[in-house]
């Protein structure tokens, strides 16, 4: 039997760990077991340390048989290689990956460099999701005036997003949006209890 990490040397260390009722088995050669710090079983969690392997287990939480629509990569392929098929795989397997990324890294949101051409749209998307949250909160709190204002700001941003980058949206549309109160936000009828 070959080592699960280097796949070239004979495995001599066999580990079994039960995490949340699921059994995980790993076979390692001596070199890889030392490198992964397996000689200290107390401070050892398979999912944390054996990144590639723990990863393969994590992604299995996805319903079986899903394939990436762009590159038709499957979870079985990930289990075999520890690598993804294409950039869209990060969306396809998002659910299984999120737990794994949390174990692997120091956070789960990228805070570093952004390509210049995406910087503007990324800021806008972040602003949009913030406004949508505020809108939900305003509606829940029945603050409809504020909600209408938020709704208009969201629409405005969405319209800008539809434009070609660098192009200003048509002026009349902005005017319509800022004045338009044609669609008042109606509170959902609440059940009397």
């Amino acid at each position: 039997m070959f080592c699960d990490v280097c796949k070239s040397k004979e495995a001599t260390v066999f580990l079994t760990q039960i995490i949340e009722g699921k059994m995980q088995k790993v076979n390692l050669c001596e070199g890889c077991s030392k490198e992964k710090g397996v000689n200290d079983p107390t401070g050892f969690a398979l999912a944390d340390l054996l990144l590639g392997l723990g990863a393969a287990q994590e992604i299995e939480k996805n319903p079986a048989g899903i394939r990436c629509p762009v590159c038709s990569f499957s979870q079985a392929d990930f289990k075999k290689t520890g690598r993804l098929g294409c950039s869209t795989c990060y969306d396809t397997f998002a659910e299984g990956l999120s737990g794994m990324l949390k174990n692997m890294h120091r956070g789960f949101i990228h805070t570093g460099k952004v390509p210049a051409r995406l910087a503007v749209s990324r800021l806008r998307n972040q602003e949009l999701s913030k406004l949508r949250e505020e809108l939900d909160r305003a509606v829940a709190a029945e603050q409809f005036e504020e909600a209408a204002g938020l709704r208009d700001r969201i629409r405005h941003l969405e319209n800008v997003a539809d434009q070609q980058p660098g192009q200003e949206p048509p002026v009349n549309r902005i005017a319509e949006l800022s004045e338009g109160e044609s669609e008042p936000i109606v509170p959902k009828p609440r059940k009397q209890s």
Partner: protein
Amino acid sequence: MKLSRIIANTGEWLSGSGPHDQIVVSSRVRLARNLKGKPFPGWAKKAERVAVLEEIRSAVEGLPEMENSFSERLEDLSPLEKQVLMERHLISREHAARGAGSAVVMNPEQTLSFMINEEDHLRMQAIRAGLQLEEVYAMINRTDSELEETLDFAFHDELGYLTACPTNVGTGMRASAMMHLPGLVMSEQVNKIINSVNKIGLAVRGLHGEGTEAMGNLFQVSNQTTLGETEEEIIARLNRVIAQILEHEQNARQILLQQRAETLLDQIGRAYGILCHAHSITSKEALNLLSFIKMGGDLGLFPPKSRLQVDELFIETQPAHLQKGLHAAKMGAEERDSLRAALIRAKLKQMPEPEIGKIPTNGFGNASPATGEHP
């Protein structure tokens, strides 16, 4: 430019100088990038890989800083040439193993190199002598910004730059310093240091990265995580740890000088003796002995001008470098060992014997190093 012209010169990271370059041999930052909507190299069909290769290669060759660059498809390089590039840390071991559909581009100074279709579509690195991770990052960051004007990199609003392996997602950045730590090895503290560094999410690895042995007391310290921190934060964290290791190494050397000067001199003297007279030597033994000569140089036992000669031997005695000028069939291990010994003998002949009298005498107390008594 031809590969032979490039490898005839020592790379800037070896011949140049930088802060703390006695202990920190080099600083390196690599960025992993992929093209949007294209399968990663490990999953792509050959035609897809070739198309990506052409697109990236022409963008890289068009960069102003890549004028007079060396650019070659891996299938057009011999196994020996690929290994030479690997021994110089210009391509990875994994990339050296690749063939059709992959390429390498580098500048004549060998400070910038680009691996096309390694594990990711593009891995670009900058490398300089000494400890200067910020400067090295600034260099590669500028190149990245220039490339993104023509190449559409895969980027996710939350996850950042998307990479074939989830361990690189986010910044796609691996920053590392190659450290020469004979003091910590001799005083048997190095494992303790490696373990504590690993615990705080940084990695210590051998000479050629993941899964390789630490030869010649050389260790690579690098960041393990790439998501959740900015590039600057990662480098600052790495710098703090490197500064600590640096201090530990300096202390270890000082303590060795004070308490075990005789052992230290013995090791350096023996290394010099063996290297001057050996007629067959493996690359591992050579690196381990050269490490003592290098430390001897740091302590002032050898003239400063011989430093580069010793540093070059670290690279020149590697298996592929030994054979690079020869067009004969690939040599066997025994032949290489005797060629290596001859090369080292020739170089060390130009170096004077270690000047034992020059060893710093502060801290020796009453015990004279000549009598061999330890305090």
